[in-house]
């Protein structure tokens, strides 16, 4: 896994292939924080491993907002987070059921806003109780429900790299001190040679 900012192209060069759909109307608006970390994954397993490293660091009440097109690897990344949290069972897409709960070192609440119309729908699921609870929350398609997410959250965007079907650029943004602390820790963890 390589990471760093210099060698990577800017956002405009990455395809938001799915942008013709009203499903992505909020895309971009949610990813508001400054980019704290950019890293590249060359396979689904590598994406999962990155999620696992993040999962090991997460604490009760942490909220991770995921954004990225269909097939970008959001569920894959969450499977890694679950592994890092010590979840033993299988983590599958919550698109249809909207939320799935898992038990690991901490509880994992896996949300999917793909079929939600807006923030009110997330609130109607009782999201505040989950976010403030004793577990870790991961929200896929977070851009659709940004206004219902906590102010301090870790935002992660998965982008396709043009011409490379397997590769993904993964961007971490922190919207508050708590999320920033997580990214700092992750950076230390990813630094080679330590």
């Amino acid at each position: 896994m390589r990471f760093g900012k210099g060698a990577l192209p800017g956002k405009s060069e990455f395809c938001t292939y799915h942008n013709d759909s009203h499903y992505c109307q909020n895309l971009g608006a949610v990813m508001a924080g400054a980019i704290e970390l950019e890293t590249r994954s060359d396979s689904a397993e590598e994406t999962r491993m990155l999620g696992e490293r993040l999962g090991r660091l997460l604490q009760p009440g942490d909220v991770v907002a995921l954004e990225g097109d269909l097939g970008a690897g959001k569920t894959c990344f969450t499977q890694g987070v679950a592994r890092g949290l010590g979840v033993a069972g299988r983590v599958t897409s919550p698109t249809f059921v909207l939320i799935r709960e898992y038990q690991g070192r901490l509880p994992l609440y896996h949300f999917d806003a793909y079929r939600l119309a807006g923030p009110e729908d997330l609130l109607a699921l009782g999201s505040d109780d989950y976010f403030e609870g004793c577990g870790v929350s991961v929200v896929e398609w977070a851009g659709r429900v940004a206004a219902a997410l906590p102010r301090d959250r870790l935002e992660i965007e998965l982008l396709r790299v043009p011409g490379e079907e397997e590769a993904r650029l993964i961007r971490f943004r922190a919207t508050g001190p708590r999320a920033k602390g997580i990214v700092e820790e992750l950076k230390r963890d990813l630094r080679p040679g330590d």
Partner: protein
Amino acid sequence: MSVLVLGIETSCDETAAAVVADGRTVLSNVVASQEEIHRRFGGVVPEVASRQHLEALNLAIASALAEAGVGFADLRAVAVTHGPGLLGSLLVGLMAAKSLCLALEIPLITVNHIEAHIYAGLLVEPDVPFPFVALVVSGGHTDIVYAAGHSELRLIGQTRDDAAGEAFDKVARVLGLGYPGGPAIERLAREGNPEAVPLPRAFLEEDTFDTSFSGLKTAVVNYLYRARREGRVNLADVAASFQAAVAEVLVAKAVAAADAHGARALVLAGGVAANGYLRESLLKRARKHGLRVVIPPPVLCTDNAAMVAAAGYYRFLRGDFAPLTANAVAGLSLEESFLKQSFKE
């Protein structure tokens, strides 16, 4: 005298009520579909779903009784789906069922949604021989279940990422088709060549009955991205090739599971079972393996309450009743539903 069971189903999109006699004769099967509402929103909206269930359920129950030509006093039990599904939606059905049981002094029977789908098969062919294997495919599930007997349903395979129906919905979206995606893809696929676009089939390890459709979804997205850049896209070919890839894996896994477990029959159920291409593929393959195939008509494959009443009937025969303290369980597993004497309280 026949045993009349009222079935109630509110686990997701549909508000449904039905009266079934002896687990095999459908006297009424009312489905107040929310599809129109959801089409406007592009999916299931939990708050809207619960509110609509609340508004539609009493009417659905009254219609089910009227169509069946029976009254509340004729009912012997109420069977209701209490999971898996959307919690708020499940609760509407469960509370209605509890109220009826309390007022009528008849037993409450809680049913697992997957169990209910499988019993749609026994509803149409009550003499399906055990053991059989069921393939339940819908927007939220891709489950392969081994049925040794009425009280012994065991999950032996499931999706590791996306459900088959979810893959249909998401691919329909990238193809620019509407919701629900299954029927839209099937229609378009009729004009396409299923061999035109090479798409991967995830068979996973040889000894597993699990499936995976996430890679296939991504492959379709990748293909479309490439093809659109090059200015040559035949959407019908993509739809046909995608549908064929899903069906091939599902059929192979279901038949392999039946062979491995010495099953005598295969039951296909769930919303995706309404897909004609899948039905035909399964029939063709299963016949070669000497398996009897049971596929309920589409109206009993998509969510409905007749299947709930049918499943409830067999629990009724076993005296497997739920207390009025029973709860809705969003992530209810088959295992939990078939633990002896273990009611969720």
